[in-house]
């Protein structure tokens, strides 16, 4: 599981870095960056999204990171920032090969 997490992190961060044009603003909302090219809000959503993956993977067995993201953002009650980060990761290829 740790290995999966490492892979996820490296892919996501690379994808974000590639697509980020303005280095000082959040790739989603344009607010100042806190870390990994996300503003404070989207960074906290990004961290939560990664943290929660283990629980979902256990619940569904063999759930890829991409499927996890797709499923999470399709649920109505999922938080707005989580959806935005999820959609961004899908669009930017941050979930490929997982």
């Amino acid at each position, binding site marked *: 599981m740790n290995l999966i997490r490492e892979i996820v992190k490296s892919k996501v961060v690379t994808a974000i870095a590639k697509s980020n044009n303005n280095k000082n603003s959040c790739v989603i909302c344009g607010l100042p960056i806190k870390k990994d090219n996300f503003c404070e809000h989207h960074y906290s959503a990004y961290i939560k999204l990664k943290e929660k993956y283990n629980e979902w993977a256990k619940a569904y067995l063999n759930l890829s990171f991409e499927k996890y993201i797709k499923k999470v953002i399709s649920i109505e*009650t999922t938080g707005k*920032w989580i959806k935005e980060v999820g959609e961004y990761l899908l669009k930017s290829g941050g979930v490929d090969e997982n």
Partner: protein
Amino acid sequence: MTRVALVIAEKPTAAKRIAESFAPENNVKEIKKNGHTYYEVTFSGSNLKYIILPALGHIFSLKQKTRSWTYPIFDTHWVPIYEAQKTKSAKKIRSLITLFKELSQQVDFFISACDYDIEGSLIAYLILKEAIGEHAVNNAQRAKFSTLTKKDLRNAFANLLPTLNFNLIEAGLTRHEVDWLFGINLTRALTLSIKNSTNNFKILSTGRVQGPTLSFIVEREKEINTFIPTPFWNIKAQVIISKKKYELTYFKKKISSEYEASEIVNTCKGKNLKLREIKEQKRNISRPNPFNLSKLQSEAYRLFGFTPSRTLRIAESLYLSALISYPRTSSEKIPVSIDIRSIVKDLSNQPPYADLASKLLSKKELLPNNGSKDDPAHPAIHPTGTSPEKELRSDERKVYDLIVKNFLATISEDAAIKTYKAIFEYKSHIFYLTGREILNLGWIEFYKPYYKLDVQMLPSLEVGQEIPLHDIAYSESFTSPPPRYNPASLLKVMEKNELGTKATRAGIIDTLYKRGYIRNNRIEITPLASSVIKVLETYCPEILSPELTRQLEQKMNEIENGKNSREKIIMETKNFLTAVLNKIKRNENEIGTALYSALEKYYGLQRDLGKCPNCSDGRLILIKSKKTGKRYVACSNYFKEENRCETILPISQKGTIISTGKTCTYCGYPVVKIMLPGKRPFRSCLNWINCESNKRNRKK
């Protein structure tokens, strides 16, 4: 020789009730002068005369001594309210103050008969001190009552407290001064930071309790925005007993993996369940506590959707009609000094409550189920038993009925139920079939229709009996995000965290709506509030701290008990504000720029009413003409020289107009919500003149 007292009532209705309480044995005369009504009561058989003159709520207000529009401002004094703020009733208040002065010339002593709380005490004190003179303060007595019934009022005037309650007055003076210092200084600091950094003048108001209250909403918004649901699975099973279907619940309510859920279903499908045992339990459901203000507000919101401020307004009107006791109370206790039996007896004369009241009157003892919260000034909210003199408005009737039924319920008896749990098993899998029987309806009968209790009887079963599982399946569910606050739940959070007082909380929530910081009944934070909170969090987080606000509230409460002093708290407030204001001053540029951009965005969004249906990229914008001051709606491409869009529409000149995000199904123009003062909000499409839907409505 006749002794004359000037009695100060809080409002005209209260003055009338006080005067009428002395009739018919004594001579009560109504006198009108300079647009004001006051009463003269001449007591027969004694040399006493009362002149009862009502205030109009607060008629004095704090004002800064100097005239500059800067900060910090720490020098204040009390002035007639029309000198401090624009008010429509300036003329009336001026003549009222003159009348107080005039009538005070002919009296021997004074009586404060305003509501017995901080505000009431302060209203009378300021009239005595500022309008009449210091000598009047020292020559004043206090009438203490919790209802405006004849009995209570006569009792209060027969047992006048020898002096004013100076602790309450000090607490009131402190609270007003602290709130004034916070409000004026923070508002000016934020407004001037915008002006000095961007050269734009836009007032950005804030107050002592608004910031911490907003921070709770912001925190909840963050939780909702970063919420990821957790999946879980439920097992749903059915059995058929005596040709009737019954739902069973699996002993684990949430199964955390799909595999485990499917294993359970596959194992149990088509198998027989064996009844292991039937557990029975008797349980009491306690009677409700008598209402305090916040409990009444939360019940009125739950049942009728009334906002806390609306409930308070209605309760005040019921109090002024002598139908209920004083509503601004924290107490959940009805003390033994209140004659409950006589109230129930009086209620039995009101047809809707006659049957219920008669049932209670046959009981030997009528004891309320008092709660833990207390208020030294007033008991819990209860009906007085007095029948309404005129037909109540629909909303008044609802709140009155709720108060009466809560009162009847709290003095009745606990309800008793019996619960059954039939435990079925197949190997290690356990299923429950539950039932409930009412043994004694108790208070629930008195609180109908505001509390419902379902009854479900178990079928006839025998331990050891085997029943085939008719159906079993699993279903996927997800956990839910924390709910958004609504006005009632926000009020509860404020109460729990001691933000504001029972009298001010509802008003603070209203102010947050009015200032555009929050919207909707399921409260959402606006981008404006998010930005303001973000700026304040960065540069002066202390003014958002619920903990600091709570500590200050506690210190102010200590004044009421004589355990703290106004001077000390004002000094601490000034020191605190000086530090905060210095911080704002140091970061004026950053704060001003950030706030201005938030305001621009906010007003921009406010004006944007939706997409223009007549061009590809235009937005319909609400515009106020600089020349005429009139409002209209135009496409954002209307002012362009090339590819100009000609869309321009008339709109209501009054009220607030909000985009609904929806478009008219007839004409495709955006639908807006129009809120006119004093009228029910309504929706209309922007093309209301030509739209088919409106033409049809008009024909109807």
